[in-house]
């Protein structure tokens, strides 16, 4: 081996070498080469951002709002976030001291982890879940520890499962309900049971509630609204899913003052502030976007019912997810593993779904079907999946 090659091999950090690129990316590369493909693989709304929000952003540009904002974001926006959190979820956060506007909820997760976790700590991660959590924990030098959820509890976290996963080194837990990819939600009572264990073991909570508005059967419970939990909770939310603003990269984080100050240090040195024009758009979203959100939620609701009822009819058993915009059926009936299922379905029927194992332990044997897609396409996708499953299911005709 020449010296140059050796140098090249060593120039990456140990931390970054230790994490894998997202499994979604590999699948994306395959799917994006297919023509006439119906994608149920998209983790974002099929709606375009409401016009009033886009218009407000354009106006801010016309008026010349192109400079930095305060590190924590426009105070006006933080005040609107504070009001919104109180109205929608009954939690009170001080706009000056307890809220930071971030570059998407993803940055908020990174800030929460980096501000509170030391090398050697363990951070519990409810799985299956969003692909970013574990890598971000690893990058912070800590160890992600999966806490499994499965179909027996409709992918809800139970106190028992949590208790089993806790060790002396457990420092924090990432909760993510409504969940991507399972669609699971937790009721207030179910969260209280978990909160009891969290209290007992003195854990911090990173509660990623980006899908909070997309709760279909009962109102969402913010984790910090649970008794005694506010002081140990870092609440993460954003505009991407509820307001169809994924590309704007705008989220926010609410936390006790000491943690907010710590997170703000990282945020100010790494990002300075979230994009100014996106903040102006977000302000309008909070002021007048409520009706649009309602319409979108109503539309996801009936699509959810349609796809879940259809999948069950086809023989892919699927619980009725209470939130987000994903159905997470078991593909056990086909005898395939989830990677094979997803690849074959894509190649044979041109429908893209995401293999469940991409979302960590517990995801295997399932696929994630996003129903953030128009009804017409959903119907065609269901027809294609039905044909596919029929072809690949070995039925015992004599029974």
């Amino acid at each position, binding site marked *: 081996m020449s010296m140059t090659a050796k140098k090249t091999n060593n120039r990456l950090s140990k931390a970054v070498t230790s994490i894998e690129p*997202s499994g*979604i990316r590999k*699948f*994306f590369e395959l*799917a*994006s080469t*297919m023509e006439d*493909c119906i*994608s149920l*693989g*998209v*983790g*974002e709304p*099929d709606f*375009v951002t409401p016009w009033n929000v886009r218009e407000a952003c354009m106006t801010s540009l016309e008026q010349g709002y192109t400079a930095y904002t305060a590190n924590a974001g426009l105070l006006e926006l933080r005040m609107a976030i504070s009001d919104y959190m109180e109205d929608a979820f009954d939690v009170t956060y001080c706009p000056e001291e307890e809220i930071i506007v971030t570059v998407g909820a993803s940055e908020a997760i990174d800030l929460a982890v980096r501000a509170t976790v030391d090398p050697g700590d363990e951070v519990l991660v409810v799985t299956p879940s*969003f*692909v*970013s959590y574990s890598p971000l924990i690893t990058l912070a030098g800590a160890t992600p520890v999966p806490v499994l959820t499965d179909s027996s509890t409709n992918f809800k976290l139970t106190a028992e499962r949590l208790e089993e996963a806790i060790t002396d080194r457990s420092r924090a837990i990432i909760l993510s309900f409504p969940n*991507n990819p399972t669609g699971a939600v937790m009721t207030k009572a179910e969260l209280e049971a978990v909160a009891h264990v969290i209290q007992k073991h003195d854990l911090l909570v990173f509660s990623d509630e980006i899908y909070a508005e997309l709760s279909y059967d009962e109102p969402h419970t913010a984790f910090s609204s649970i008794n005694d939990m506010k002081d140990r909770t870092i609440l993460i939310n954003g505009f991407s899913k509820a307001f169809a603003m994924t590309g704007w990269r705008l989220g926010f984080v609410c936390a006790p003052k000491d943690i907010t100050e710590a997170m703000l240090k990282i945020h100010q040195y790494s990002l300075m502030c979230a994009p100014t024009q996106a903040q102006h758009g977000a302000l309008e979203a909070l002021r007048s976007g409520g009706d649009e959100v309602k319409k979108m939620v*109503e539309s996801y*609701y*009936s*699509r959810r*019912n*349609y796809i879940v*009822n*259809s999948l069950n009819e086809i023989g892919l058993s699927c619980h*009725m997810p209470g939130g987000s915009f994903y159905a997470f059926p078991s593909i056990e009936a086909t005898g395939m593993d989830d990677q094979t299922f997803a690849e074959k379905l894509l190649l044979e029927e041109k429908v*893209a779904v*995401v293999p469940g194992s991409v979302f960590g332990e517990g995801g295997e044997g399932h696929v994630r079907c996003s129903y953030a897609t128009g*009804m017409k396409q959903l*119907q065609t996708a269901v027809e294609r999946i039905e044909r596919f499953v029929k072809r690949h299911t070995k039925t015992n005709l004599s029974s």
Partner: protein
Amino acid sequence: MSKEQETRLLRILEQNGRIDTEVLAKMLDEDVETVIQTINRLEDEHVILSYAAVINWNKVEQESQVAAMIDVKVTPQRGVGFDEVANRIQRFPEVSALYLMSGTYDLSVMVEGQTMEGVARFVSDKLSTLDAVLSTTTHFRLKKYKHDGIVFGEDEKDRRMVVSP
């Protein structure tokens, strides 16, 4: 079916009157039978009045239509207010919509016809000659950008990536 579900059903039908009943039942998470019964009842009660398609007639050769909105001032009549004159106006087949308005005029009459002359003749011969009608102001529609919540001629390209987290 609950009132809430019934409203959902109506909203879905309003968007797509041709929707397959089985698909509709799945969307509502209800039995097909319940959905059929509810629709029948809503039809009987004249809650659902008709199932119409939204058509861009400009794309159909020889079938392009002219339309006008006519602001009409009328004298309301004792006992029946605007209803009697409205009732007379709405019977003309040329009238596609009729609304009572607040503001500087009383009735807004939507008229559709094959030619501009036809619409003009309707206004001068039929509408203006009604006893209760005091004045009319006719506005011809030049272009349809959006109708019943549907945008005409917008490309519906999905700008998202095929797979994302």
